[in-house]
């Protein structure tokens, strides 16, 4: 799974050589396995607010080893920096610097998670500065961490507690191996919606999920992850990919639906299949997408239209059908796969970036439409992911692309799938209209 270079520099002579030469030293990331400990050591909860106390108590209730003060030389699994009551940028100093003293004690693949409030809802410029300051702080810290450790942040809307379901859900996601390739990112919890799962290992138990573009790559990984988390999975792909699709369906004990999602009736067909075969429909993952790269100067109508039709128009049409359906009303979840290209742009991908930017716009605008049914819609934007598609990139280009992030390696399809599985869970109900990048904090873009 991990690329050969990462394997080489992770141990033995390769490790020494890389160190001496100052070569990138990617590590084998801690990825989620059922039954695995949430973090590789005790959790230090920094912060003096009520929210910090409540959060520490909640973590204790999860049977975790929680510290409110650092113990010298003790290796830490995570630092949770609770900064929910800042009025002024000066308030950052104490908690941040005391956390800084513990950074050297972080175990490999440890986590730093900040919990703060959204700048947009700040009561005044000073508090907005403090809140926005955390953004820059966190992203910089993420770049400073080594050995597979990541830093991510949770931003709470005003009125949302540090222990609201989605705050805890997002914290659990960031602490766990599920977020291995998510680094330097924020998730905003907009409301107290959502519900923590009865069994954290089966967060999708009882759910029926549809994954488009599931015949291979990221889509297949999403199907497998949703199945592992307890969902009944319907895998969808174009009829021409039916053989691979069948193999995925059978491996996740689900059903295959051969369907071109750009057909007019695709949404109807998806609902009909899910409800007809499995009795309900809770989750739709818009993963299907195509690329037809060409510089804009050389772009033709066919390349432009096909990419826009599949990557955004089809999602919009299917969402219309879902929103109109009586069978998609019980806290439904939609997660779309966007792309860092849609955020930061990519040479030769004007059509693709337009479509993926479109996905982000669509997600933000659709979120309010799902609110009254307690639904949510979010996007995940993968960076460099090791797939059959990226394997076709020329070696040198690929080698550069996969190192251009804080974790100095490409992500796995499963990393994208983990983020999607989290956003599709009940625990993420308070998170909507968000775009979560799964890119190892790619240097390109936001």
């Amino acid at each position, binding site marked *: 799974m991990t690329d050969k270079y990462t394997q080489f520099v992770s141990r033995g002579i390769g490790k020494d050589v890389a160190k001496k030469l100052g070569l990138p030293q990617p590590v084998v990331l801690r990825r989620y396995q059922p039954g695995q400990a949430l973090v590789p050591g005790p959790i230090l909860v920094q912060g003096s607010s009520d929210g910090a106390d409540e959060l520490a108590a909640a973590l204790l209730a999860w049977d975790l080893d929680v510290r409110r003060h650092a113990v010298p030389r003790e290796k830490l699994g995570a630092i949770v920096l609770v900064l929910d009551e800042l009025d002024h940028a000066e308030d950052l100093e104490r908690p941040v610097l005391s956390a800084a003293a513990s950074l050297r004690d972080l175990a490999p693949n440890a986590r730093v998670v900040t919990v703060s409030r959204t700048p947009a809802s700040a009561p005044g410029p000073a508090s907005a500065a403090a809140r926005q300051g955390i953004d820059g702080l966190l992203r910089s810290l993420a770049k400073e961490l080594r050995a597979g450790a990541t830093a991510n942040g949770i931003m709470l809307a005003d009125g949302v507690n540090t222990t609201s379901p989605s705050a805890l859900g997002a914290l659990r996601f960031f602490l766990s191996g599920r977020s291995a390739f998510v680094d330097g990112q924020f998730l905003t919890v907009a409301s107290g919606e959502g519900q923590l799962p009865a069994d954290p290992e089966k967060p999708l138990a009882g759910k029926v999920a549809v994954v488009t573009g599931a015949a291979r790559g990221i889509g297949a990984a999403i199907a497998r992850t949703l199945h592992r988390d307890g969902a009944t999975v319907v895998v969808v792909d174009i009829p021409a990919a039916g053989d691979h699709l069948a193999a995925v369906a059978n491996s996740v004990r689900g059903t*295959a639906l051969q369907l071109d999602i750009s057909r007019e009736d695709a949404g109807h067909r998806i609902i009909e299949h899910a409800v007809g075969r499995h009795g309900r429909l809770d989750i739709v993952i818009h993963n299907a997408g195509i690329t037809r790269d060409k510089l804009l100067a050389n772009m033709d109508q066919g390349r432009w239209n096909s990419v826009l039709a599949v990557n955004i128009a089809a999602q919009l049409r299917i969402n219309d059908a879902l929103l109109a359906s009586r069978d998609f009303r019980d806290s439904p979840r939609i997660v779309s796969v966007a792309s860092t290209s849609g955020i930061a742009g990519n040479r030769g991908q004007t059509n693709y970036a337009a479509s993926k930017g479109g996905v982000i716009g669509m997600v933000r605008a659709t979120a309010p439409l799902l609110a009254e049914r307690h639904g949510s819609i979010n996007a995940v934007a993968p960076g460099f992911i090791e797939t059959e598609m990226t394997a076709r990139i020329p070696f040198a280009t690929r080698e550069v692309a996969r190192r251009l992030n804080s974790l100095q390696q490409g992500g796995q399809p499963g990393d994208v799938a983990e983020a999607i599985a989290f956003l599709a869970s009940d625990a993420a109900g308070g998170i909507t209209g968000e775009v979560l990048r799964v890119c190892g904090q790619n240097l390109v873009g936001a």
Partner: protein
Amino acid sequence: MSFTGQSATGPEESSTAAAATPGGGLLRQAVVVGGNRIPFARTGGAYTKSSNQDMLTAALDGLIARFGLADERIGEVAAGAVLKHSRDFNLTREAVLGSALSAETPAYDLQQACATGLETVLGLANKIKLGQIDSGIAGGVDSASDAPIAVSEGLREVLLDLNRAKTLPQRLKVLGRLRPKDLAPDAPNTGEPRTGLSMGEHQALTTAQWKITREAQDQLAYTSHRNLAAAYDAGFFDDLLTPYRGLNRDSNLRADTTLEKLATLKPVFGRNLGAEATMTAGNSTPLTDGASTVLLASEEWADAHELPKLATVVDGEAAAVDFVHGKDGLLMAPAFAVPRLLARNGLTLDDIDFFEIHEAFAGTVLSTLAAWEDEEFGRTRLGLDGALGSVDRSKLNVNGSSLAAGHPFAATGGRIVASLAKMLHERGHVDGRPARGLISICAAGGQGVVAILEAF
């Protein structure tokens, strides 16, 4: 010519009355849930190196994926192949073991030449109706590319005797019998063992006997290609087919063929048989590789698994003709089976909404239709007052058939049953009754198997 015919009236007992099962209950319905096949490939094409077991497993896995049957224990799986290696003695069970089905699913092989696929459907449907099983997968597969090649009789006997020989001198003596000509392999052929005539030559005789013109045959072939291409374009096969080995469509399909192109082809059958040769590569099915499967179930099983119920398997009938002694054409058995089946069910050709007549050759279909329209055939051979009747051509093979799709012998029945079940389900009701379809498949050895399906 004989003057005695095969009576079109069935036995006195009527099948319409519900009969008691061994378990004491009434006969249940057997429903077609759906089907799956791999695209059919012309011999020597995409599946050249794929074995029967490979292809049957692929077709099964696609079916399992479509209906969420992974790890499911199915009542029974029945399938077969016409061209079969000796190593494939347990072909279907081996395919089941290689599939995503529960390894506790039993299976058996069946072989009735080109009727194999339809006969597996009828056999399993009967078991479901009787309450012996609740679910079944019927199917068939054939590879003309990966066909078995036998050693010559001479070499075979030497090898068997060699195996029996106990001492070195005995073995040397046995080996001494071997002659160079014994080393030439014995390839399978489609010739009828009792007549030495190939199937095409037999059909050429029948085609000439019924005075079927070249133009009529080419027209049927053209319509088959056009209908199949339209069905693909409409997405009809999206939930009937799973790609295999890079193939998404039947490789024999020529969507752009024209009557003019078909008219240029030279006759390939019947050139040495006296009559005018009219049968070409265009209006005959090519040798093809492929596999198909059909999921059958009781209503209760389908409901419990939240699966669709497309159609019911109403009834089936087999017939055979004495082609050895020139009484009837080799592939004319369905001409007798259909009238008997219709009579037993109190139906006429007018009560059928879809006709699926397997296109072994265009001449086969047209000869059968001609026989049904023939007064004398109706009177002397079918024991009717006159002709059986005409088939409305707009109801015939509306989504194409074997001339366009190809015909991997044992796989054709499953292809037709699954497609017809879907068409019936889409049509729903006609004049207040369920839409009804008739399947007719001719087979080597002068046999034919036919069946009636109704929309559920």
